[in-house]
């Protein structure tokens, strides 16, 4: 009976126990053949979206930030919403690659590569928006970095969380990229060894950094990987904490609340997992990776979505309760206005997508139903986008003085840049699945039954 239970508690992480050579063949296969129609279709769609965004950005830079729907009262809206949304998306990648690694969650091995790639692309998308918001983007370096200059009294404000964001996010991008690259080295060596074309061989020879698969190389690799996981772990928390400071250090009702740091982190992981899940559902189908990215991997991600969804639910209700409990009229009004004011639709979209709908993942039937999952990932992404919209716009548009109240209407330029950011994200992701192995072959090989039996035979 115990054996049967162990089957349930410890199912195999890769289905069918394929031989090691077959794993390399199957994972490398998409890189070694010409892409099919589906890929071209997806790529051209993503590229068109990116093109639309580029046109909008050029128009924006040529004309000025006035082409957005911002006004004196609502000085932050779509741009910062998109920025927080994309930064948040990235967090799942770091959680999977760093925290799940430290917690020895072996199921991460099939999904960590794609999730880490997604992190880097999401941070690239996020970076667009603060840059565009600065107006004269060609002065960007001076707004963001403490560079001595001859442009008059132009110096960064070290007291501003916006500047801390620059440091936090650039650190995050650097560490994530290094982590991703280091994890790729053994796999890139495998591709190098398989390469037939001399140019391909040359490129991957450089990228693989002379990897020879020796015991020494592996030992160094594992040490470095562990250190990078340790360094990335605080980043999972710190980046979105600093992003939450952009709002919470202010004195605006609805923005200033002490729960923001952990609440933003939970929300980021929530939305990030939804995005990873969505990408993996498509990838495993298109590239036929069902045996590596099994239904159990998807189910585990659904559970993370359920848990983090309830965490943000707890944060919403705590905020609402304390807004009342504080006895502060402005604080209370900010929340009443959120739920029942002119932007109430966005609040209820947020609640239903983030808190209510993920509850279906209590049922195993839905956690194993791919169409349901896919729809849910879209819901969660919509909900989390609206969460940031709710926080930013509804807190601003009716501030302390009713005479300065106003509404916010986005323009086509803002929509176009948002679409463009999705275009950039998917363009990069689609290129990634063509040129690099989506699954970490080296790590997947370590979780096979074969490896385990050897370890048991030798160790005990």
């Amino acid at each position, binding site marked *: *009976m*115990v054996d*049967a*239970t*162990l089957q349930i*508690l*410890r199912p195999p992480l890769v289905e069918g126990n394929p031989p090691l050579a077959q794993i390399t063949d199957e994972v490398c296969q998409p890189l070694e053949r010409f892409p099919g129609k589906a890929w071209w279709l997806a790529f051209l769609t993503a590229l068109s979206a990116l093109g639309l965004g580029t046109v909008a950005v050029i128009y924006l830079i040529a004309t000025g930030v006035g082409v957005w729907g911002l006004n004196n009262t609502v000085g932050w809206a779509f741009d910062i919403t998109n920025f927080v949304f994309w930064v948040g998306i990235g967090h799942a990648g770091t959680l999977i690659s760093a925290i799940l690694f430290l*917690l020895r969650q072996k199921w991460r091995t099939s999904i960590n590569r794609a999730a880490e790639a997604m992190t880097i692309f999401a941070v690239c998308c996020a970076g667009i928006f603060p840059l565009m918001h600065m107006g004269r983007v060609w002065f960007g370096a001076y707004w963001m970095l403490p560079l001595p200059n001859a442009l008059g009294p132009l110096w960064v404000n070290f007291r501003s969380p916006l500047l801390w964001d620059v440091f936090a996010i650039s650190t995050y991008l650097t560490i994530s990229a290094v982590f991703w690259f280091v994890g790729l080295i053994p796999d890139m060596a495998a591709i190098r060894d398989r390469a037939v074309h001399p140019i391909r061989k040359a490129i991957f020879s450089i990228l693989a950094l002379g990897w020879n698969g020796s015991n020494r190389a592996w030992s160094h690799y594992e040490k470095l990987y562990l250190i990078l996981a340790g360094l990335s772990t*605080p980043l999972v*928390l710190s980046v979105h*904490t600093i992003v939450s*400071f952009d709002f*919470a*250090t*202010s*004195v605006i009702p609805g923005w*200033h*609340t*002490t*729960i*923001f*740091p*952990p609440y933003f982190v939970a929300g980021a992981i929530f939305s990030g997992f939804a995005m990873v899940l969505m990408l993996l559902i498509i990838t495993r189908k298109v590239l036929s990776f069902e045996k590596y990215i099994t239904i159990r991997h998807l189910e585990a991600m659904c559970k993370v979505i359920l*848990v983090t969804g*309830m*965490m943000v639910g*707890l*944060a919403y209700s*705590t*905020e609402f309760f*304390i807004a009342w*409990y*504080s*006895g*502060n009229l402005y604080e209370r009004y900010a929340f009443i206005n959120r739920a029942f004011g002119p932007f109430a639709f966005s609040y209820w979209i947020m609640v239903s997508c983030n808190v209510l709908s993920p509850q279906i993942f209590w049922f195993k039937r839905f956690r194993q139903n791919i169409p349901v999952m896919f729809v849910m990932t879209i819901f969660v992404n919509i909900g989390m986008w609206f969460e940031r919209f709710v926080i930013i716009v509804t807190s601003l548009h009716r501030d302390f003085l009713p005479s300065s109240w106003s509404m916010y209407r986005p323009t086509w330029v803002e929509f176009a840049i948002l679409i463009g950011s999705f275009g950039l994200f998917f363009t990069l992701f689609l290129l990634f699945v063509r040129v690099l192995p989506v699954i970490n072959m080296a790590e997947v090989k370590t979780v096979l039954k074969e490896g385990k039996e050897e370890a048991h035979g030798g*160790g*005990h």
Partner: protein
Amino acid sequence: MSSARRTLLLSVCVVTAAMLLWTYQQQPQRALGNVLMMLVILLGVVLGACFFIALQYLMKGAWAVVLRRIPEALTGLLPAAAALTVIVWLGHAQLYHWVHPHGDVLLEGKQVFLNMPFFTLRLLIYFSLWFLIIGRIVKHSRAQDEDGSPTHTFANVRWSAAYMIVFALSYSFASFDLVMSLEPHWFSTIFGVYNFAGAFLSALTVTTLLVIYYRRKDCFKDIQPVHVTFLAKLIFAFCIFWAYIWFSQFMLIWYSNIPEETVYFIPRMQGAWRPLFFANLALNWLVPFLGLLGYRAKRNIPWLVCVCMAVLAGRALDVYLMVMPPLSHGHGPQFGAVELLSLASIAALGLLFFKRTLHKHPLAPTHDPLFQESAQLHE
């Protein structure tokens, strides 16, 4: 437990009770504040221990199975926490000044929530839910020893999920009710999370100390040094988590500098409270962070015991700093025989209940399907 030891522990509790009664005559708020401190600390250990168990079930974690009976026995302290809650409830008029809101517009506005009938009802709901769910989890775990059926594991996965939801909501609100409402004008949305961070850290520390003590005994022969190391890693991680939540709360209130919120930190950062305020950060974060950063530190048992003791002292100080300043009315911190005895009696009371629960049942859950995996844990 030898009867001599039991007598000693009982007498500590009796002397503390007498001391508290005597203090109550002179300084009722100080006496009740001590009882509230005992309650918050004990409750944190109990609920944190169950959180640890529930986490293992939900994550299908195996490593802690061999030592699970220790946090399980810690949940046996819940009746002690309930008894202390009764005393706090009886002393509500001296502890919580929202009971008399007359003339205070803000407090009158909060009466819908802060009133005795509802406060009582909430406490009853929290404790009934805790007794129910914790009781179920422990019952299933022990029933498995008898019949060896894996269905108990799956039942406990479900109960653990229920516990997580109940715990998250009830512990947030219990922190607002029991601690935050000591200063009913002040509010902080992160307060529940902050209390959770401290509670779970203390539960981990107590578990670690007990594991270190019991692993020498025959009955726990499956506990190996590596299990202690894993616990040390968790203490390391959660001391950082505590500091993160502490910093989030402090930083946002300090930076925004809104009088309604700074009212909490100003008295705690002035006069004789100031050194305690910084000592709190040192004991709960700096000492365990630097102390457990190294590879060897997490494997050196005597050193680990020292760090755990520092963290427990930090937990006591943390709770002291939450509870006592509003009850001392502008006085500096008072630390005398009554505080010392209260802290000692937490340990005494805890050990009495712990031992009583621990020895009722087999100490190794050998029929748990993951027991073998746990016993064969390696680095």
